[in-house]
């Protein structure tokens, strides 16, 4: 169906300003946070109400037009890359906070509400929403649900899937759907778990109910988000859990002379029975990149630094900081500092939070990877990445949610040089294959989208990919919702298999086998 006809069909029930069909209006939607993948959408719609959104789905379903949902467009895996002949459904105008119940500690939200705004709105009740992705100023709750987003505090407070109590929304066929809710553990299969992180392939969410947690006066709002990549449904409401903000937080910063001992120290902290609020690692390349403009005060002589945060009551924090210091000292930390003030704590965090912008200063473009590995392999992986840098003739700096084993290698390249991008892409794919080999996964929190379709062929067998396709069919038999994302086709995997063999008989021939 021609794009003009789709737009005309949508204008029969949508106001003029809700349908964008001129090229210059559609252009801003051609990519999400992963800008190397671009595709001009056929039509862009921005419904103002849930009813309008349902009408869009009914119309597209009838006309067999693909629909791709989009939140704030901050995703890092191309999960909301548009479809050329399809409708790009922006949830940006569905951005009301529907309810905050401070006593029950929950919030009901429309999908377009920015993550950080939930915590801001809950602050008067001493509550906040825990998941804090780095993009939390901009990223939306609906996008967080689609991607099962994480953040720096998930070791202790969990991912989006642990903090969303329920979602309401529509199937591609326009049927209303309510999964989970304020009452825990309802009857039947846990379809909520399936919808979260489904990358927009299963449903469209129109309401999200989240859990809020208590928070103290001292804690800054670091980034938070769930991960179905918009494949299952369009979320129109999300209910989230709000938690009390801890009354106090302190940050320990430790330097290590080599990455291996930093990795060992991370394992020692966890083995010691400590669950810190955050446990982050940066290698020397990362600290060197951020220090000149963040002035965080990092030890630039260290091969790696660890940032470990304790939160809770002042007594609890003092106890935990003491324990952390002890463990780090016996793990061989060369220097050890504890934040003496809130300003210092935030300054140390600012460096970590600005790692990606810093990469942008060093290089025209950067490519952020998102593999996860069992923590004990950290040292090995960082050394393997160093060898790959030489092989691909590209630099890579490493920031790392060490507590969760979630790596963010940032590969620096130049998008104007096609060969440079191709090398970056292969470099990234090789890191992910290594993660799979070590018992980890190709994506910890950014999602598969279009970016990691090839790597899905490596992590999952044909039968496993068929199971994903079966789930997709159950929710969206016509295959119109965010098609082409998350699940690679058989043909694609066959092609990728041939290519990998072509580039070398065995991947990572330089590595010992496990």
């Amino acid at each position, binding site marked *: 169906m021609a794009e003009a006809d789709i737009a005309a069909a949508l204008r029969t029930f949508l106001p003029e300003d809700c349908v964008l069909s001129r090229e210059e209006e559609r252009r801003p939607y051609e990519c999400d946070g992963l800008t190397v993948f671009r595709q001009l959408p056929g039509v862009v719609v921005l419904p103002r109400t849930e009813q309008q959104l349902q009408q869009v789905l009914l119309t597209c379903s009838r006309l067999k037009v693909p629909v791709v949902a989009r939140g704030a467009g901050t995703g890092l895996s191309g999960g909301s890359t548009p479809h050329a002949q399809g409708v790009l459904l922006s949830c940006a105008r569905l951005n009301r906070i529907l309810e905050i119940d401070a*006593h029950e500690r929950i919030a009901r939200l429309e999908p377009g509400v920015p993550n950080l705004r939930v915590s801001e709105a809950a602050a008067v009740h001493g509550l906040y929403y825990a998941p804090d992705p780095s993009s939390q100023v901009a990223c939306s709750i609906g996008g967080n649900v689609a991607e099962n987003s994480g953040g720096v505090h998930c070791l202790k407070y969990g991912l989006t899937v642990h903090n969303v109590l329920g979602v309401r929304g529509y199937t591609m066929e326009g049927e209303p759907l309510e999964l989970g809710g*304020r009452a825990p553990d309802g009857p039947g299969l846990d379809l909520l778990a399936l919808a979260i992180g489904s990358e927009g392939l299963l449903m469209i969410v129109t309401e999200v109910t989240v859990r809020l947690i208590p928070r103290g006066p001292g804690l800054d709002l670091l980034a938070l988000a769930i991960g179905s990549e918009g494949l299952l449904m369009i979320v129109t409401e999300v209910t989230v859990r709000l938690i009390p903000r801890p009354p106090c937080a302190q940050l320990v910063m430790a330097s290590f002379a080599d990455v291996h001992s930093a990795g060992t120290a991370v394992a020692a902290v966890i083995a010691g029975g400590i669950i810190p609020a955050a446990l982050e690692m940066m290698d020397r390349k990362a600290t060197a990149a951020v220090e000149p403009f963040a002035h965080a005060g990092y030890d630039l002589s260290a091969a790696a630094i660890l940032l470990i945060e304790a939160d809770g009551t002042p007594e609890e924090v003092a106890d935990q900081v003491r324990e952390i210091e002890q463990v780090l000292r016996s793990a061989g930390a060369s220097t050890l500092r504890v934040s003496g003030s809130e300003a210092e704590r935030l300054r140390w965090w600012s460096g970590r939070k600005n790692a990606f912008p810093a990469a942008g200063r060093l290089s025209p473009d950067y490519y952020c990877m998102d593999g996860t590995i069992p923590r004990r392999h950290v040292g090995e992986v960082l050394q393997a990445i160093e060898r790959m840098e030489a092989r691909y003739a590209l630099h890579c700096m490493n920031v790392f949610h060490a507590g969760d084993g979630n790596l963010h290698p940032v590969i620096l390249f130049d998008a104007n040089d096609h060969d440079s991008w191709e090398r970056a892409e292969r470099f990234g794919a090789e890191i992910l294959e290594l993660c799979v080999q070590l018992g980890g996964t190709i994506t910890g929190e950014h999602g598969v989208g279009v970016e990691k379709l090839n790597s899905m062929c490596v992590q999952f067998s044909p039968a496993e990919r068929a199971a994903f396709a079966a789930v997709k069919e159950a929710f969206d038999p016509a295959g119109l919702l965010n098609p082409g994302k998350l699940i690679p086709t058989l043909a694609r995997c066959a092609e990728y298999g041939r290519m990998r063999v072509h580039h070398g008989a065995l991947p990572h021939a330089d590595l010992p086998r496990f």
Partner: protein
Amino acid sequence: MAATADAVLAELRERVSAAHRTRQALRLKGSGTKDFYGESLAGEVLELRAHQGIVDYEPSELVITARCGTPLSQIEAALAAHGQFLAFEPPAFGADPSLGGVIAAGLSGPRRVYAGAARDFVLGARLLTANGELLRFGGQVMKNVAGFDVSRLLCGSLGILGVITEVSLKVLPRPRAEQTVRLELTAAAAVESFNRWSALGLPISGGAWWQGSAWVRLSGAPPAVRSAREGIGGEAIDAASAQAWWDALRHCQLPLFDSRLIWRLSLPGAAPPLSLPGEPLIDWGGALRWYADPAADADVRAVASAAGGTALCWRGAAPAGRFHPLPPVLARLHRRLKERFDPHGIFNPGRLLAGL
């Protein structure tokens, strides 16, 4: 041992493939301690207990991986040796349940609303499908968003999608300090207090009410537990008595569970008292309420729905099935998923949903 496990698994695959070919219904059985749970039992028994053993446990990774037939007691003992535990406190009914049954049922104990449910701790699972294929979903890492979250979908699926042959769970260190206090409160005041204390950030890990007494369990760093205990007041319970109370609650061993008819209501955490006759046993800080032998004319399901929750008939005959009925759209999604994972309907037919 590994060879034995492989042999057991090969035999299971053979049995399942044969059943798929001949359209023979299978009734998946671990320890059989939860035979009472679900709509109905049907099919030839497929014993899974023999596929047992801990496959991998690295305390510093906070992950344990074990085969489905592994007794829960063995897993808990291995974790306890390293000061760790399963924070969702799975209930055990009578004999020692198997890990596969624990995950297939997806039931959680008193820490459910504070630490998370069984599904929140599932990191990965292996699934033996109807056509005899062995699939792996999730993994052994905390963060993993590759593909749909099928391993969490399996938690609570009562085996209708396939045989869960292996599970990886996140485990946690045992809290440094724990203190239980008891207060004399009405049910309404107890639920109000549990919610208020949680909103203040007190380290609560259990909130229950029974026969005029509210039981509050505090867990965490010693200073936090101490100051919360002072703030809450009430009578401090010694460790042994506290353990006995929380165990009896977790494993459904209080006298209420001797009743003929028992309803289990799941509700929004701050739901006010319900208009049902008799006093409930309250757990999960108010989100779980048990009622024994309600009057014959009490419409428990309607009351639960009106309060924003659902009602499960735990014991005795319910008018329309054990589980709260699903809305039609959800029931259809269940049917479509079942058809795709198990086209001939051989796994635990009718156990989760009548006719499925």
